[in-house]
């Protein structure tokens, strides 16, 4: 009704009285081209128009690593607060600064490297004008650490983190969180488990104690385990009929067959049914440790106070994690087209192939290339050809996602069954054309002016800055990244982009999954 809205390229959302936000975060600046994702993930305020999967507690509804979308960064997962998912596909520093666009607005902030008395490190930006604190942290591991046959443990654990700790059972724990007006949530991808914590300065000590309990003394009461299991299973049942979810899962399974990236990150009904309390305990003990911990902090706290906080929350964790090594992977499949039949009027298509690792010297050029091809909002080539010229789809996009052990260039389109073959042809033509000719100088200049000019928009809230501080550590960008990033983009030349287009866009390597009833499309061997 009155608060359901429909956007040119955003999300359906709803509001609660005057507190219309959260929602806003899902739309403004984030979800330009991904119509189905944000609405389903607005778990704090489920839209009834969204699939009921949106109501499921835990992370079973959010896209996972190999299937993650670049806008996952701000999507809340558990409904108790914002999640830190710094998956922004930006490169590490590979080029030295040359020039900055003359009019460029340059964000700047003082980042402190804090080491606690106990030796725990964090990056901090002090912001004392508001009595709030935002903390983002992570442990290496993620769903790649799920034991075989127990796929979904990491995800299960994220859903259990606010289900009781210390002397507080789940009800008491959550009531206490409300009384303290604190926010805490956890999420995972294939490589990393993320935590997000926010508090008011006045309640900081008590809220920090709650965080410490969750991380070091979770209860995992059997009642809570069984209740959350039901929710996760119910989420899987919805996901199994959701074309967006199925197409992502099937693509990962096809492209990363035999690798942990190809496993279902949320598990299957069988594996989730098999997960025991002991599995959760073991996963936490192996993965929550000080040596793979990264922390980013923004807010009303001094470096000395933060040191004390870090020791209180994380000081009791084991020194070393027990991580099972994960081997390198590259998307590959013998049969490059898989059609999963589902009785829907609109097919959902996902395509993808191998891309460059973040440390590759051409990564920044590839990032700019993707911006021109399918990452550039309404200005991209795919948008122009598929949507603006032909009216074939509401949503078409691409992105580059480097992971720890693989990197993918991927994208998607959703179109009526009759237009699937044509849409895929158009996309392939655009990739082929780009590989052959590269972009024009104007396209390159436009993409660079967007990427550099919009960078300050990514740093206009404490939450975004905290996410970014964590991301910079995880991606090993160097602490000067905020100051050097735009110069790296400006340094990308037309020749760089042409070279990387030829190297990257090998259309015959495209792996495509389609969910729906596409007409005139035959799987090829």
């Amino acid at each position: 009704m009155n608060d359901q809205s429909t956007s040119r390229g955003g999300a359906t959302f709803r509001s609660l009285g005057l507190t219309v936000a959260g929602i806003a975060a899902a739309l403004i600046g984030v979800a330009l081209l991904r119509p189905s994702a944000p609405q389903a993930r607005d778990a704090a305020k489920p839209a009834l128009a969204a699939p009921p999967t949106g109501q499921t507690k835990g992370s079973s509804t959010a896209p996972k690593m190999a299937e993650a979308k670049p806008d996952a960064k701000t999507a809340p997962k558990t409904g108790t607060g914002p999640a830190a998912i710094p998956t922004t596909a930006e490169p590490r520093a590979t080029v030295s600064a040359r020039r900055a666009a003359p009019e460029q607005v340059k964000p700047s902030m003082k980042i402190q490297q804090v080491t606690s008395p106990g030796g725990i490190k964090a990056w901090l930006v002090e912001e004392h004008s508001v009595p709030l604190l935002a903390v983002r942290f992570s442990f290496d591991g993620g769903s790649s650490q799920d034991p075989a046959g127990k796929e979904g443990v990491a995800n299960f654990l994220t859903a259990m983190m606010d289900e009781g700790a210390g002397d507080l059972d789940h009800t008491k724990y959550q009531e206490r969180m409300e009384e303290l007006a604190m926010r805490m949530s956890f999420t995972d991808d294939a490589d990393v488990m993320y935590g997000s914590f926010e508090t008011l300065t006045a309640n900081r000590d008590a809220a920090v104690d709650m965080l410490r309990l969750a991380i070091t003394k979770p209860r995992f009461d059997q009642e809570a385990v069984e209740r959350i299991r039901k929710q996760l299973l119910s989420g899987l049942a919805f996901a199994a009929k959701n074309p967006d979810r199925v197409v992502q899962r099937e693509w990962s399974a096809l492209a990363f067959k035999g690798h942990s990236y190809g496993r279902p990150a949320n598990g299957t009904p069988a594996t989730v049914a098999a997960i025991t309390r002991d599995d959760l305990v073991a996963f936490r003990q192996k993965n929550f440790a000080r040596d793979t911990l990264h922390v980013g902090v923004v807010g009303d706290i001094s470096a000395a106070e933060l040191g004390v906080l870090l020791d209180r929350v994380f000081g009791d964790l084991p020194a070393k994690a027990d991580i099972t090594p994960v081997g390198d992977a590259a998307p590959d499949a013998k049969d490059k087209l898989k059609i999963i039949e589902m009785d829907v009027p609109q097919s959902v298509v996902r395509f993808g192939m191998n891309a460059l690792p973040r440390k590759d010297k051409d990564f920044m050029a590839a990032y700019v290339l993707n911006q021109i091809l399918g990452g550039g909002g309404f200005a991209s080539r795919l948008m122009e050809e598929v949507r603006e010229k032909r009216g074939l789809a509401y949503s078409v996009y691409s992105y580059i996602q480097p992971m720890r052990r693989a990197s993918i260039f991927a994208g998607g389109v959703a179109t009526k069954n009759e237009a699937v073959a044509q849409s895929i042809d158009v996309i392939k033509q655009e990739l082929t054309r780009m590989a052959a000719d590269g972009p024009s100088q104007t396209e390159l200049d436009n993409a660079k002016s967007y990427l550099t000019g919009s960078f300050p928009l990514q740093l206009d809230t404490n939450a975004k800055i905290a996410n970014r501080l964590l991301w910079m550590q995880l991606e090993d960008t160097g602490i000067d990244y905020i100051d050097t990033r735009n110069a790296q983009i400006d340094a990308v030349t037309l020749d760089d982009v042409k070279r990387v287009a030829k190297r990257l866009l090998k259309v015959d390597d495209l792996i495509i999954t389609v969910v729906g009833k596409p007409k005139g499309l035959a799987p090829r061997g």
Partner: protein
Amino acid sequence: MIDRAYRVFSLSLIAIAMLTATTFARHAEAATRASEATLPNGMRIVVIPDHRAPVVTHMVWYRTGAADEPPGVSGIAHFLEHLMFKSTDTIPNGEFSKIVSRLGGQDNAFTAQDLTAYFQRVAKDRLPKVMALEADRMVHLRLEEKEVLTERNVILEERRTRVENNPAAILDEQMNAALFMSHPYGIPVIGWEHEIARLSREDALAFYKTHYAPNNAILVVSGDVTLDEVRKLAEATYGKIPANPAVVPRARPQEPPHRAARRLELKDPRAGKASWHRMYLAPSYKTAAPGEAEALDILMKVTADGATSRLYKALVVEQRIASSARGYYSGSGRDDGKISIVVVPADGVPMAKVEAAVDAVLADVRKNGVTAAEIERAKKSYIAEYVYEADSQATLARRYGWALTVGQSVADIEAWPDRIAKVTPEAVQAAAQKSFDIRRSVTGTLLPEAPDAPPQSAANPAKPNRS
């Protein structure tokens, strides 16, 4: 170079004081955030300062939405919103977003029942440029036939994505249509498919000329700006556009008394799992008696929001008959609002049992009210949300823009935490007694089963009887 530490960020201190009961209360008078002005042509201006980062969020909100569409052209408000990105007398087709992108900006737009809004987020020095662009398309949209027909296919795809591919969305659409018997809120924002398929250039232009004008618009800018700066820029852009006398106050058909509960069942094998849904008609913040909408927000937080809620505790934790149970009140519209509840039953649990359990929880709240402790927690949750949201200038622009466009005032918005804090247990119980009225409800069930009859094609409904 901007040093964050020297910039002032005047978060709502009243709200923080309510949460912490500390000395922040002493500074509560500093809490007014937004300032206002009005151009001679009637366009309102609201500026919300946040000087932490050198960026701005620029939004223009029109006081028109899907509920203001003429009969038979459902979806035209949203269609026009898409077409606003096409050509004007000076901007070629498709250039609008490209210009914004070259400015390092992000842009988009959205349509709701009561409003249509357009926005750009840019570095502050580019604000004059996006204001000029937005002012241009307020009155100079051209609309070529080919642009219109291509974009119509895009919104048909959008409808497939949002609705046709999603049984829960189909049920939601049907339930809304049953809930609102007379008011246009019963028609989906995106429009009925058969009507979208016939929308024309002339339909779009007619809607544009009736509703798009400075005297029907509100300019909201948040971020690193002052009211004086924005007013000067607005005078040079929007200020040049004459008021349109064709703009008239909105008046829509209102609901008659609701006398009988309605029930719907949708069988769709794509549903994944069965789910149980209910909606109640309720007043909105705009139509409610003083304090009533705030009480409804508290009521639904305690009753149905999250793992500490009555419904979750009863159905999920204690009786174990559901895997999730939640609901909320939506009262942000210009006309009536609603209460919504959704339950996903545990495997094998009959719908009747779930429904009886929900009704028992609601009956208990009606009869006995909720506890003072529950109300306090709910208040803290809302006020915390209000405070945390102030971290984002984009969110603030949306909060003010939405509320102002449906007819609230800046004072209403900024006093909201205060009004929430004043909600009494008696008011919450009264809201329950009034709102949980089965005669004003629609109950829907979604079953993952084959339908009893072949589904009717949405694109080819029964032919109208043209005699």
